[in-house]
């Protein structure tokens, strides 16, 4: 079995500042980190490897410096890492990203034994984009079932049973056959620290394989900015306008209060 983990390198959010004049993120001097929930995805993959036996492969699309995030994944115990990097991948939205990731997964599967079962694990969402779309879109690209918001997973032969917290206040228990894709919540586990031996091996014994447009045989209309259905038009810090009032109590009480405020403001 192969377990693919898709990770993203993001700016350490606690230290991100915004340039008030341009409204852009100041990235200089801000350390990059593995997107926090992706570490839980890596941990899950490693636990599956330890319990079931599997080859764990980490994938990331990003600039060459994202290699550092993959090295950290290798240090945690991931077996192999692939960095999807090419100038032509730049500016990709979630759709172009999932298309590119799917190409890499297919390429790796083609090179391995036929019909090997596999599981793809993604963190629920990245702290920079916050879309939570890449996982589901990647499952569609690969044409495999998906279970999102997973907080617990169990193996039963070539099936998995997953607890999903997709809806608030309820847990859905779902079963699917492999291959499948899951997106996980941070509640699923506590990620391990890379050991010293793990770090040394990540740099001396393991490698990060670079894949570009040509190696992936990518359709140029589907990657990068060209392949993106959405484009970032503007990034800005929302200005706080006026005051806001927080209502509390039972629904009845809150409705009563709300009506009173609306009347006071002559809206009703």
């Amino acid at each position, binding site marked *: 079995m192969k377990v693919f983990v898709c990770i993203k390198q993001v700016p350490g959010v606690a230290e991100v500042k915004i340039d008030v004049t341009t409204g852009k993120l100041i990235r200089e001097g801000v350390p990059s980190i593995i997107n926090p929930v992706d570490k839980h995805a890596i941990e899950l993959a490693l636990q599956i490897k330890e319990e079931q036996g599997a080859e764990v492969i980490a994938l990331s699309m990003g600039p060459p410096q994202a290699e550092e995030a993959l090295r950290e994944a290798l240090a945690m115990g991931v077996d192999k890492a692939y960095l999807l990097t090419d100038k032509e991948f730049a500016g990709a939205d979630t759709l172009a990203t999932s298309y590119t990731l799917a190409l890499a997964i297919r390429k790796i599967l083609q090179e391995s034994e036929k019909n090997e079962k596999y599981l793809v694990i993604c963190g629920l969402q990245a702290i920079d984009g916050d879309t939570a779309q890449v996982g589901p879109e990647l499952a569609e690209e690969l044409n495999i079932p998906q279970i999102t918001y997973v907080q617990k997973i169990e193996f039963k032969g070539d099936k998995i049973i997953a607890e999903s917290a997709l809806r608030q206040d309820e847990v859905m228990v779902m079963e699917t056959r492999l291959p499948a894709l899951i997106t996980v919540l941070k509640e699923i586990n506590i990620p391990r*620290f*890379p050991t010293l*031996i793990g*770090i*040394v091996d990540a740099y001396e014994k393991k490698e990060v394989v670079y894949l570009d447009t040509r190696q992936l045989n990518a359709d140029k209309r589907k990657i990068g900015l060209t392949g993106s259905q959405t484009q970032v038009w503007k990034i800005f810090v929302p200005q706080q306008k006026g005051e806001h009032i927080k209502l509390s109590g039972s629904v009845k009480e809150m409705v009563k209060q709300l009506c009173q405020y609306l009347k006071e403001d002559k809206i009703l």
Partner: protein
Amino acid sequence: MDFSITKKQQMIRKITREFAETYIAPVAEESDKNSQLDPNVFKLIKEMNYFGICIPRKYGGAGLHNDTISFAIIVEEIGRVDASWAITVGVHCSVVAYPLYIFGTEEQKQKFLIPLATGEKLGAFALTEANAGSDAAGIETSAVLDGDEWVLNGSKIFATNGGIAKTLLVAAKTGQRGRKSIFSVFIVDTDTKGFSVGVKEDKLGVRASNTSELVFQDVRVPKENVLGGVGNGYQIVLKILDFGRILIAAQCVGLGQAALEASVKYANEREQFGRKIGKFQGIQWKIADMGCAIESARLLTYKAAYMCDHGMDYGLASSMAKLVASEAAMQATHYAVQIHGGYGLMKAYQVERFFRDAKVAEIYEGTSEIQRMVIANRLLRQTF
């Protein structure tokens, strides 16, 4: 010339910092108060392979035996949150496991080094005695050959890790040549009959680190447990101390760094006379001096480590690093308490602990005065 550290070393620093902040920092104050190392942290440090930093893989270590800079970085990062853990791990690695790797026979490595490197057993180095500290020639603990065994008698004091160690390196007198004593270093298992732990010291600083008296009463040690040959103790001890000084220097760089960071944070928060105290020149000068002293110490420490890794004679560099770093830590922690004012005296603020911890570093592993003697002796013999 290249001052940058490698990607691997950067990752080691990043992970060690995260680990230290996550698991060691939260219990540091409690450990200091109780004069006791946290057993859970012990387990985690073992899992992280920090007990085998300077030892090759084949002997159970992490394989960084040619990367003393990484060793310094790890000790520095642990020292940044807790000097007691830095010294506990550092002593084990630098003056017990590493000498066993350098001077040990293959049999000794198989038997004693592997459990040390994996962290299964903790190590201590027993040199100091009531009447012999820096003047190692005054050692009175004796070893007398009786058949196939050496019989050790005497007592050692101030042994870091002494009370919790399972494997000891013990310096003992094995002969006399004219007026000069001849020493040897013995590997002693603390389960050996006749060995006992005496007083556990209650100290000013690095309180969580175990410092104990060790008593040897007819302790019988097999002949094959002599490290580096009978009569070579003096040279071996000097080599052990050279490497150990890199450890203390690195610990002090971390400690000084912690004092600087706490001071910067406080100076940017605390307001008096309508402005942040960091706006006052009196505070700014202290911050600048702290920064310079710590950076100088860091460079000297890494240089000593670099020289060690490149097979150069690093004795002078490690003495300089130890002296400069321990005094930088003392100055930085002293300033940190001063910048914090009344709060700096309070246990609730870490700088109070940092200040006490730094004082110890000017004394152990050769006092500042001894370092100056060593450095001056070297310089006075040098041709420029």
